């Protein structure tokens, strides 16, 4: 009996305070750690990054607004949302690579009780948190210019969520291949150009001449933008097109997830 009491006394304080759902609490702590390190501390200690976060998706929006004399404002706002979501994956790729290769922070986390799934989830959410200022501004513009129905809004959120998952998969997969900052930036620019600058994210696909239009369909962002523009009422897609767009988006996300989970190594070989 005495021995048992002695053993209990020797237990670390952590187990004392984590008596209720210790697993759940520790996972939440692990997710919170990534959000703090990769978003909140950076935003708090370097407030200048907040301006950059807002400006990046809004700059294209402003460009499209001025060039189209305001006629493509709806498409540009929806494009801004998609760009923000997709940007999360691009940022994730460079942030993961940066924390792993330059600070060796990921190595420290690998040797801790955190699993790769929880680390990735925390880092992915941190990218969303980082995008929040832009999303808030876009949300205000969306409410003013687009005014979706509740049903359309749900569909729009689903499209954005799918875009977010796709971009996270792409970001994580590319992060596993980059071993230094130069490679990381190269991948980052490549992803950004291929998936968010060239495809018709901020304007309808009909603006692209026909032979080149097929190239745009190689990017998952094209399908997201089409669905978003349809939900926002700026284009009208037949049911079959909507179904095909969703199937392609889900298939791409699932495929990339499989590649990411197979290729990525938490413990190196």
């Amino acid at each position, binding site marked *: 009996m005495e021995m048992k009491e002695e053993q209990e006394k020797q237990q670390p304080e952590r187990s004392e305070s984590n008596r209720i759902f210790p697993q759940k609490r520790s996972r939440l702590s692990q997710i919170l750690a990534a959000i703090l390190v990769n978003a909140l501390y950076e935003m708090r200690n370097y407030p200048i990054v907040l301006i950059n976060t807002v400006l990046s998706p809004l700059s294209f929006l402003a460009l499209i607004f001025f060039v189209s004399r305001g006629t493509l404002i709806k498409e540009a706002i929806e494009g801004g949302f998609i760009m923000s979501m997709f940007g999360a994956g691009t940022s994730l790729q460079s942030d993961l690579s940066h924390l792993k290769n*330059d600070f060796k922070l990921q190595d420290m986390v690998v040797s801790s009780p955190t699993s790769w799934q929880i680390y990735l989830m925390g880092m992915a959410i941190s990218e969303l948190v980082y995008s929040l200022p832009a999303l808030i501004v876009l949300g205000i513009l969306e409410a003013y210019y687009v005014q979706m129905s509740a049903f359309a809004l749900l569909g729009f959120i689903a499209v954005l969520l799918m875009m977010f998952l796709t971009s996270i998969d792409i970001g994580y997969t590319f992060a596993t291949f980059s071993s230094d900052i130069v490679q990381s930036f190269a991948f980052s620019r490549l992803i950004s150009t291929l998936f968010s600058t060239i495809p018709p994210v901020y304007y309808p696909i009909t603006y692209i001449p026909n032979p080149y239009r097929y190239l745009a369909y190689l990017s998952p962002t094209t399908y997201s933008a089409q669905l978003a523009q349809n939900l926002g009422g700026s284009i009208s897609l037949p049911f079959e097109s909507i179904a095909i767009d969703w199937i392609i988006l889900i298939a791409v996300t699932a495929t990339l997830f499989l590649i990411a989970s197979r290729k990525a190594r938490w413990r190196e070989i």
Partner: protein
Amino acid sequence: MIEESIQTLSCDHLTKIYGNSKRKALDSVTFSIPSSGIFVLIGRNGSGKTTLARILAVELEPTSGKATISGIDVVKEPLKLREKIAIVPQEARAVPWMTPMQTISSYLLWRGYGYGEAKRKAYEALERLELGGSANALTRTLSGGNRRKVLVATVLASEAEIIFLDEPTTGLDPISRKEFWDLLKKIARERFTFLTTHYLEEAEALADEIGVLDHGRLVRMGSLDQLRQSVSYNYSMKIPLYPKPPLPKLAKGEIMEGREGYRILTVEDEAFSIARDLSKGGYRFTVNPVSLDDIFFYLVNREGEKTNGNERGARETTTREERE
């Protein structure tokens, strides 16, 4: 008694080959040491120190062989082991946009602590390392030594029983390094510290047990005294290559030629006799009791001879004993 027997770190023919490389980064490393105090792994750059530390810290999978820490299999039970270990990797840097307090507390969150508890423990660790005053300063504003201290405080604040520090003092000035040693001695009173370094004086100052690694092979293992005994000479002389000195014929001892000059390991009488002769000729030299640096040089030189399949090795080595 049983508890004591499992408090060991053991490697059994641990081998690592990276990718398609033909070279073994670790070559059948086998040893067993008690997991207490400070174990220092010494070796030249590329000798396999980091590879071994990373395998034991569950960051890297070995190609073959087995390793256990306190009875837990490094390869098969990584999750169990991760509760007990923490590492400060080679070239790790404190994130510059965070404060020491934020750095440590976020690491503790990753280890599963609650937010309040992580903050409290972070503050305690910083106070202990006399960094309390800089707790809320951005790490980029701290000195190099203090930035390293923050990383050590990070693992120190955790509950980890075994701490791996991979070349933690590289790049520090001599005074900061000595301060760092005092800190490591304090840590080692509570936790087993596995340290890699290529600073031999660091091993000499800190180690309870030393492992000498060369080209992925464990050349020697033991306490500093045991390593000293592995060399049967007690004095070391260093003579510059130029002006070329007359090399003595040794009754007992070894002459090794390195880039910086000749190194003679010998016994006391002979050392003083050579010193007299060199003084007369006006040659420069130093005479000191055999240090870990000499032992390392000697062991690595011997290993080189074995690897090259040449009795005399790549460097010119002569011994009267061998000649006779």
